[in-house]
């Protein structure tokens, strides 16, 4: 067996789950397992307790209101992607989700899990940051709301306390007249992006958020930048680095090309609304 031994708990209430996390400083939450189980199998993580939250009730709802979308912690990427109400309220959510892994992974992985996993190569943390969304958490100290700006504190690191469970995420609705777009370059559709860009255009404001370019989600304000200068302005703000997947120079080129392309698509989207 590849993972190291652990005690397995499958609580049926949130209070019990929080209690289980408080009781063991080395415990980990298991949601869809699409990021955690590989880490366990490679023994990059070896928690002493796994708290499987898939038995909790009330965390599987997608609620679409006038001002945005609330997504429960057990909502799978695939269900959020297929939801018509979500598409109408905040089209950037499905536009980006279509690039999150392959359909088979999306059937099990949760969108909230992806937000709190806080991988710089993941699409949804960049989307939450751009839209100014938030995550609702519950811990032994009670419930609180963490704004997207305060969520990710480092690569794979969030501001959640050890015994806090994310119960839902909030994606604000797209304002009338505003436009969004998303695109990324990956080796294959569904692979982690070498570079991804989400853009929100609202009146004169143009903002872009990047995937796989920086350690934590960064939102770059491109308002007032001439079309021809968009790419260079983004590269100057981001300063992409080398890694095993791409050189810094190649990544900078992807930022230049994608920024112009996605800003244009978001403007077009705004004009159509």
């Amino acid at each position, binding site marked *: 067996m590849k993972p190291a031994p652990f005690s397995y708990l499958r609580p049926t209430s949130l209070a019990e789950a929080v209690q289980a996390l408080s009781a063991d400083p080395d415990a980990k939450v298991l949601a869809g397992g699409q990021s955690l189980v590989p880490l366990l199998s490679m023994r990059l993580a070896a928690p002493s307790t796994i708290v499987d939250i898939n038995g909790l009730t009330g965390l599987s709802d997608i609620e679409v209101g006038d001002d945005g979308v609330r997504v429960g912690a057990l909502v799978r990427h695939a269900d959020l992607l297929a939801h018509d109400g979500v598409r109408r309220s905040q089209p950037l959510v499905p536009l980006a989700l279509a690039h999150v892994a392959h359909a*088979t992974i999306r059937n099990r992985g949760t969108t909230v899990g992806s937000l709190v996993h806080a991988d710089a190569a993941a699409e949804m943390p960049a989307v939450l940051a751009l839209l100014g969304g938030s995550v609702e958490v519950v811990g032994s100290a009670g419930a609180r709301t963490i704004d997207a700006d305060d969520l990710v504190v480092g690569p794979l690191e969030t501001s959640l306390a050890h015994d806090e469970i994310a119960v839902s995420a909030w994606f604000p609705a797209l304002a009338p007249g505003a436009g969004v777009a998303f695109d990324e370059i990956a080796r294959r559709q569904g692979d982690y992006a070498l570079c991804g860009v989400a853009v929100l255009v609202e009146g004169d404001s143009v903002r872009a958020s990047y995937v796989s370019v920086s350690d934590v989600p960064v939102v770059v304000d491109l308002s007032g930048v001439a079309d021809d200068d968009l790419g260079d302005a983004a590269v100057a703000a981001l300063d992409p680095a080398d890694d095993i997947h791409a050189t810094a120079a190649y990544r900078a080129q992807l930022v230049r090309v994608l920024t112009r392309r996605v800003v244009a698509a978001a403007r077009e989207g705004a004009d159509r609304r």
Partner: protein
Amino acid sequence: MSETLHELRLVVNGVTHDLRVPARRLLSDALRQDLGLTGTHVGCEHGVCGACTVLLDGRPVRACLLFAVSAVGCEVTTVEGLTNPDGSLGPVQQAFLECHGLQCGFCTPGFLTTITAGLRDNPAPTHEEAREMVAGNLCRCTGYQNIVRAVERAAELS
């Protein structure tokens, strides 16, 4: 300290099985080692290759990214469950045979389960959709051309 074993009941291809396994037993290993259902293959064991794909309540998932304890209460379908009730090849299996959709066969079980669910959701895929349907599965032999052809042939047969 001996490891705690969990008593669990799994329903696989309509058959109920009782087993005693540690919590860290992956569903892929439980199927192969505990239940002897070696049709489900394991390649990468971290979600990338797709060889271990099974259907969980009808939806394709990676069996290597799921603990057997987490599959309690769900219907699991493996490649062994894709034949027709009379034991003859199901439509996707038949299409792979006709189109030469496999060489060594290592990746095939994952393709068969994925395509079975894919065609149920989209019974008449375009060529592009047929390619997309198998984009999450790796094959090191065929070059994919005949696999995509098999998707299209299976759509005709289903």
